[in-house]
């Protein structure tokens, strides 16, 4: 009598009998995807974009602190770029077929939000200005590095990994800029840097996502542009840092995808009848 995988009857085989159908339902590496090198390089632009933006922010701070950049000019630039950014965002949204007229993107709603935000920030600036005043400068710089590193780590690059947390990345970035803001001389400086921080870490990623969704070529253009801008901005401050940044960009863009593809053969996902069933897509029913 052939052995069947049942428990309710005694089939005459010993309890530790191993049938030829043992582990037949085991499936390995069922849901893995194969990566294409150049596609991965293209997608890694998201990470380089964000690193460039962070570096640009730090360079702006350095200029603001040394006095080369005046806070009023920075505020003006922030507002102007916000305005241009909004137009670009709306244009991309229209291009993608989304409604702008009645949604949260409507002009008056946006202007109202911006005005409310600016007023709040301006009124809170004196407090922010003195928030980390008593901490020593070295500690401030170390904390800032950690905060921005954390921000880059948990930033939402478009994946659904467990480590990603949009709110946490924004919080880390804001705290980092708060640390830097405390080293500045007047309240206006603080207000300008905080507004610029919000623009760089909250609004610019949104615009980036919209632009990248619009056209494939746009993404490459944005990435190359931001790399050039950040490296040249950093060059004017410190040559060594600029070279390091260039190297980091090179590693992230060209070497990391190669490494990811090299690691794929080591994948060993096991699936079988013992897995807990996922019911996300099975909940719908016809009434």
């Amino acid at each position, binding site marked *: 009598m052939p052995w069947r*995988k*049942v*428990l*309710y*009857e005694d089939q005459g085989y010993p*309890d*530790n009998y*191993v049938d030829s159908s*043992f*582990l037949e*339902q*085991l499936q390995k590496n069922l849901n893995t995807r194969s990566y294409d090198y150049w596609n991965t390089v293209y997608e890694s632009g998201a990470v380089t974009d964000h690193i460039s933006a962070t570096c640009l922010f730090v360079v702006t701070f350095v200029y603001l602190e040394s006095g080369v950049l005046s806070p009023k000019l920075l505020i003006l630039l922030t507002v102007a770029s916000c305005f241009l950014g909004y137009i670009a965002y709306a244009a991309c949204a229209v291009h993608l077929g989304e409604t702008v007229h009645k949604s949260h993107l409507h002009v008056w709603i946006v202007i109202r939000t911006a005005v409310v935000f600016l007023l709040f920030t301006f009124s809170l600036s004196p407090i922010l200005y003195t928030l980390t005043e008593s901490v020593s400068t070295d500690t401030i710089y170390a904390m800032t590095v950690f905060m921005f590193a954390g921000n880059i780590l948990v930033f939402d690059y478009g994946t659904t990994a467990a480590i990603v947390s949009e709110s946490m990345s924004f919080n880390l970035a804001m705290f980092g800029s708060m640390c830097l803001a405390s080293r500045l001389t007047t309240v206006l400086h603080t207000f300008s840097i905080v507004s610029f921080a919000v623009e760089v870490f909250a609004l610019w990623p949104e615009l980036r996502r919209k632009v990248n969704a619009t056209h494939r070529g746009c993404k490459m253009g944005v990435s190359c542009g931001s790399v050039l801008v950040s490296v040249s901005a950093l060059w004017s401050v410190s040559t060594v840092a600029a070279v390091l940044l260039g190297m980091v960009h090179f590693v992230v863009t060209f070497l990391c995808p190669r490494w990811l593809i090299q690691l794929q053969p080591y994948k060993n*996902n*096991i699936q*079988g*009848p*013992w*897995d*807990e*069933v996922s*019911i996300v897509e*099975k*909940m*719908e*029913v*016809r*009434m």
Partner: protein
Amino acid sequence: MMVHNVCMVSDFFFPNTGGVESHIYQLSQCLLQRGHKVVIITHAYGRRTGVRYLTNNLKVYYLPLMVAYNQCILPTLFPTLPIIRYILLREGITIVHGHSAFSALAHEAMFHACTMGINTVFTDHSLFGFADASSIITNKILKFSLADVQNVICVSHTSKENTVLRAALAPHKVYVIPNAVDSAVFTPDPSQRRSDRTTVVVMSRLVYRKGIDLLAGIIPVLCASHPDVHFLIGGDGPKRILLEEVREQYQLHDRVQLLGSVSHEDVRDVLVQGDIFLNTSLTEAFCIAIVEAESCGLQVVSTRIGGVPEVLPDQLIYLAEPSVKSLLNALKNAAEDKRRGRIISPRERHERISAMYTWQDVARRTETVYDATAELPSSTLADRIHRYSHSGSGWVLFVLLLVIVNYLFWKLLEILVPRKKIELVPTQITKSSQREAT
């Protein structure tokens, strides 16, 4: 016939109620009836500490160890060696039988038994995944813990495949012995059913892995399409809110009854009130609930997951894919069959289950495993070091350190608390010490 002195070890035992607990208790009772000596070690439950005797002089040691999380002790490894060594020597134990991969005490006791040269058996009661963080850690621990165990028992063939993969065991070392049900307790009583309605009974913890989300999707649809269907849901948990919301949204207060937590002795009385038993679990190694329901004479509808397809023959169960649509189909078929009278009678279901799954049979098969285990040579320290160092894992050095330190500690105890000074427990001659005919 080989008489074994068995020590069952687990964190989970009476007064805690559950599958593992009743498994250990029933198995121990049947082994006692077959003439073996059985002793149980578990941790103290509140003020219940020390030595207690259960029915038929079943001795239970409630060790005063700190309970850390989920009824498990804090895994400290070395401090449990003196007391476990003392108990094993005093009772003259020849086989240590650990239960449940979640139980830290079981792993520790088996580790110490191995150090002392006593053979061990392990029973795995649950299925595990491989992908999430907690599974990876538990599988790693299991791999090292089961490397020293002589034989392993699993409750279903699917569970055997799962355990073999998780712990990298040789398949012939793993025995498949299913759970059983006490059919004297779970007897049918059709007079408890209401003839004017079809009652669907659900009896489980209300958690995600029991598929309560599927149940919440089924209830409104079934109640709408079948006006005579009523739901009787026993059990409690975080998903209870979901069911209450569904009941509220569709105004089904008179058709859906939530009983809350049902104590172990009342389960049968709730089950016999039903016509159909519904199990929506997303993962189960064996699923004793469907066997209990079958024994009480209900029709059974269940999801086709884990070890469930192996448990009951096709005539006794309606299997469905784990989706709302498929379960609704199966329930409709079951209700239709009942209406047409095309069902197996409760009495006959009970008779068939009583023949299929008995604790006496489980004990007989476990005895075979013990016989096989007793014949294997116990591992020496050299064997263990050799085996671990060839497992090729990064944790090898750490585990070897634990093994060697435990060995040295044991040798120290042999000097400080010599065996001659330990009073052995006198062998009792119990009333029913005759071996049951096989």
